[in-house]
């Protein structure tokens, strides 16, 4: 067991507001970790700092032995971090296949031409979207756009996959499919950090949960234990219920 991601004293301030305050945790290779907390607690900000979308005000992020905090997002992507976005971001003027090729062509694989097309189709099959490969990305339904985004992230062959509320907004059937998909990734040994609100999903897939509130880490424990932690209950439901 070796640590894949090590976050130490991570801090982000926007003007006078401290969105993330000295957060530290680490992820072991192959783990699926849930990053939880009420809205505005700083989860997505943490994810954005790991992927390089935001640069930290303080603290460090290391991937394996290497410090990645402060690098540009494209450099971090090439080191093996891939992500999806809270509000799904397809590339509307491209086809579904091209969306995935984008990640194959410029990511770690550097595939192009027929080879890239074949690999893209294989990735789309994994998420059950092969039949729509030549459709325009903007014609997809919401769940299919989410699938496409996941295929795009997986095509990068990431060491670490960041999922930002990937299951939000799905109906119960879609949710079941989504959870199964994440479980299959887990079986393949992909390390995943997911920001999520759907408790069933968290219980089903996460080995461990890191819980944040108002920018600070308030719990870091195996899933069942973390969810039962009185601090966590207070953070989610308020003092009256504690």
């Amino acid at each position, binding site marked *: 067991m070796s640590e894949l991601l090590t976050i130490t004293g991570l801090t982000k301030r926007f003007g006078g507001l401290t969105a993330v305050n000295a957060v530290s945790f680490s992820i072991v290779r192959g783990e699926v970790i849930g990053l939880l907390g009420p809205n505005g607690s700083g989860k997505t900000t943490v994810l954005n700092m790991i992927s390089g979308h935001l640069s930290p005000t303080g603290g460090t992020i290391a991937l394996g032995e290497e410090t990645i905090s402060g690098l540009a997002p494209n450099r971090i992507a090439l080191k093996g971090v891939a992500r999806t976005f809270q509000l799904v971001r397809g*590339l509307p003027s*491209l086809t579904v296949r091209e969306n995935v090729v*984008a*990640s194959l062509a*410029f990511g770690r694989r550097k595939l192009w031409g027929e080879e890239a097309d074949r690999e893209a189709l294989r990735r789309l099959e994994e998420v059950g979207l092969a039949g729509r490969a*030549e459709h*325009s990305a903007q014609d997809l339904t919401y769940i299919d756009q989410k699938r496409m985004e996941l295929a795009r992230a997986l095509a*990068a062959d990431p060491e670490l996959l960041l999922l930002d509320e990937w299951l939000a907004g799905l109906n119960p059937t879609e949710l079941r499919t989504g959870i199964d998909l994440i479980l299959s990734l887990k079986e393949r040994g992909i390390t995943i950090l997911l920001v999520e609100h759907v408790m069933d999903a968290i219980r089903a897939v996460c080995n461990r949960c890191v819980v944040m509130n108002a920018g600070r880490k308030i719990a870091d424990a195996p899933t069942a234990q973390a969810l039962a932690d009185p601090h966590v209950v207070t953070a989610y439901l308020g003092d009256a219920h504690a």
Partner: protein
Amino acid sequence: MNGKTILAIAGFIATIAALAFVPFVVGPYGVTLMIGMLGYVVLATAWALFSGPTRYVSLATVAFFGVGAYTVAVFSESIPYPLLLLVAAGIGLGVALVVGIATLRLAGVYFVIFTFGLAELIRQLVTWYEVNVTGTLGRYIFLPITPEGIYWQLLALAAITFAIAWWIGRSRIGLALRVIGDDEVVAVHCGINITGVKLALFGLSCTIITLVGAIQAPRWTYVEPSIAFNPTISFLTLIMALLGGAHRLTGPLLGAVPLFLMFEWLSANFPNHYSIFLGLIFIAIVFVLPRGVLAFIEERWTLWRRNEPVSGRTADE
């Protein structure tokens, strides 16, 4: 490659070959007209190469055009001719990279403002250099190049520019540009170095523009900064590319030919009121496009992508 692509390439080569014979058919005035038209076709195509997909509107066309023309004027006696073009291209590329590194990270509006003033800055620097270092303002260019020679050089440059634009459309960098055009955040997270891609395209586009200036310079015989750095050139290039459609290969061509002829006619018949007409036409263009210029570029771009899905590559398979 499929039959359609081969046909397109054959057609392209035939067109260039046919155009090469034009000087033998038309008179001296015809050649002059063709030089001007071809110059703008290349300028507009090169402009669209960068500004079309990235949506960074550059008003600096004449800055690079002027750099090319002035390089030829300054070194016409000390450097042999073909090498002179290389030197000009090198200087243009150098300036483009410096400007690009400084400004391409900025929001689009700052880029527009900066490029707007760049021509004026370079003009003043050249003037300063000429007055203080050379001691004269204005230079004569005596190069043994005929108008036909200039025309053929421009034709070759046009062919190269179209070939590059076509190649970019089907290459990895073409996909990178489309991803950047759609969503820069996704682009960086896919591993694309967006500043690098933009810089490469800006450098390429500016180098071609510089060469247009360099090739056309011998036509003038006499050059001074206010001639070489005439802001109307930036303005015309922009209108032509926008009106023809900056998003597709032949768009700038379709804009450049009719507009060039119209402006020729205007400047011949209304030399004094020329810039007033120019301005009014341009304002009219902005107003005619119903949801704005940016939306126009984007919609046409998207529409084009969807009608001709996924470049020739799929069709080839």
